């Protein structure tokens, strides 16, 4: 028994010696323990895999859609065959005829410009003043902030339904009872319909502006306003000389992006009137949407041509406004 145990111990000792010898023989020649991939390669693969979908989505839903829109502007639709064919500039010629031959487009252009101008002259300053009020934490600021943002979260169609009956049913009733005057509803009366729609659009459009402006005002270092207050500055002068210059980059962003609104703002007309709004209240945005929704596939090339023309006006106008604001605006660093 003892002999067998001794024999086994000797054998295992020999195996161990052999392993040590083999290790000594080959260990020096073994390749260094490299990782499967370098960090750079791993980063690159990770980046490529994750960015592939967003880029593909962008390539199709932005690039291809817009390229196709340009091509569509030079096509016509054959109702019999249901196919599109090259039409040269005929869509554009028809558009120029529409512009020169009817009052519709002239009225639409005027309405769109008026809506933009009123938004600029009344909407932006009011949004800035409201933001100033909220950021300075004047009484009721929390409540006002919630109410200012409320129309942005309520569905446009719901707000419009309530407002529509409010101005068309309640307003005439109110005028009759209080002032003993018989008046038509504000939307029913074609003389007041556009002003009412415009007023409504500005009324419900403060939300995002106030939110972003008050965020920008809140980032102005307190030390700046405190120092000004010690020098005896009034709230009005603080707003004009400190707040406005310091948040100018944010304001200019809104103004630049807003230029496109001349051609895209529907003024909630589709929610008010569906596709049957009177020509007196038309805007470019409403015209394009209502036509696409109800005029059918045959009209797509004509509408694409309208879109291309509007873009050709809107794009340089936007960049022009950007350059102008950079040149005329105060040189300020936003915090």
């Amino acid at each position, binding site marked *: 028994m003892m002999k067998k145990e001794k024999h086994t111990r000797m054998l295992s000792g020999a195996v161990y010696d052999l392993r040590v010898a083999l290790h000594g023989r080959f260990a020096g020649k073994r390749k260094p323990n490299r990782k499967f991939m370098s960090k750079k390669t791993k980063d690159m693969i990770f980046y490529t895999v*994750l960015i592939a979908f*967003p880029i593909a989505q962008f390539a199709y839903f932005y690039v291809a859609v817009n390229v196709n829109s340009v091509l569509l502007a030079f096509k016509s639709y054959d109702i019999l065959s249901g196919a599109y064919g090259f039409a040269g500039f005929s869509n554009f010629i028809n558009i120029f005829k529409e512009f020169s031959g009817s009052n519709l487009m002239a009225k639409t252009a005027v309405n769109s410009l008026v809506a933009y101008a009123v938004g600029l002259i009344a909407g932006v300053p009011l949004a800035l003043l*409201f933001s100033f009020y909220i950021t300075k934490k004047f009484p009721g600021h929390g409540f006002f902030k919630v109410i200012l943002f409320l129309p942005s979260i309520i569905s446009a*169609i*719901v707000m419009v339904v*309530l407002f529509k009956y409010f101005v068309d049913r309640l307003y005439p009733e109110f005028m009759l009872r209080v002032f003993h005057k018989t008046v038509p509803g504000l939307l029913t009366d074609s003389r007041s319909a556009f002003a009412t729609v415009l007023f409504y659009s500005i009324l419900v459009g*403060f939300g995002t502006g106030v939110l972003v402006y008050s965020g920008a005002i809140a980032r102005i270092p307190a030390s700046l306003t405190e120092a000004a207050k010690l020098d005896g500055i009034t709230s009005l002068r603080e707003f004009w000389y400190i707040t406005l210059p310091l948040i100018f980059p944010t304001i200019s962003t809104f103004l630049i992006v807003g230029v496109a609104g001349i051609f895209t703002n529907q003024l909630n007309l589709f929610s008010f009137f569906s596709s049957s709004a009177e020509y007196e209240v038309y805007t470019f945005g409403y015209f394009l949407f209502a036509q*696409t929704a109800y005029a059918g596939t045959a009209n797509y090339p004509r509408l694409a041509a309208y879109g291309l023309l509007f873009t050709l006006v809107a794009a340089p106008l936007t960049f022009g406004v950007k350059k102008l604001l950079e040149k005329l605006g105060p040189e300020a660093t936003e915090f």
Partner: protein
Amino acid sequence: MKRKIWKVNNIVFVLLFAVLLVYVLLILLPLVWGLYTSLKTREGFVRDVLWPAWPPTFNNYVSAFSNFQIKVAGLQGTKVFYIYDMFLNSLLYALGGAVCSAIVTCVTAYLVAKFPYRFSKIVYGIVIVALILPIVGALPSQLQLTRAIGVYDNMIGMWIMNASFLNIYFLIFYATFKTVAKDYAEAASIDGASNFTILTRLMIPLVKNTLFMIILLQFIGLWNDYQTPMMFLPSAPTVAYGMYQFSFSALNSFNVETIKITGGIMMLMPVLILFLVFHKKLIGNLTMGGIKG
């Protein structure tokens, strides 16, 4: 001098307070009027448009609930969608679209902010140009191309269509990720964390509040949007589109002002509750800088 400052400050405050008070009245009056009008009978409304009626009745809600339906004509005949079908469609459309859009925007902003490749700069440039450059009237083309790849009238297709990073939220995520120090990711990397682990376990939790707020804002926007489902998802009408149809319906059962107003109040409630619960998060300070370059 101090007296003059005090006077000017007070005048500014009183004027702004008065304007804001008028604003609040203009916003709340139609809502309050709509709410008590929804509790009137048709006859009660005709008798007195101005004031609430007593006792209130909930019959309009019952009528609006049972009549709120849309008939959609398809290849297999006409299908009727009731209010609960439309709520489900709205939920799928808004939740899927909001989550897809916010995650794609968040991940793209992370890649662009944290991986300084030349391509990242190109992507950033694309966002800025797309935000400034106005492209008008691409809707017909969009309809054509969505039909071409089967995205049209398809719920998942709508999520894909919404999953774009070309929005203002990209800049918010980008600014947030830029402020996160490199040390976090480097420390995690030394401990053996993969890029995916760093993104999902470290970076996304760091921006989870912003991500949640953006999902919520997108959700509300999509929930309320009736024009996109009307144009791109005709076989799955959402509740917002249903409301649009309802408000212009000339059918006898719908064509009553009180019923239409009640429909509006009914649709208002879910979003209003969501807003009242989360309003502090939603209207916290949203930060956005100017456009440079």
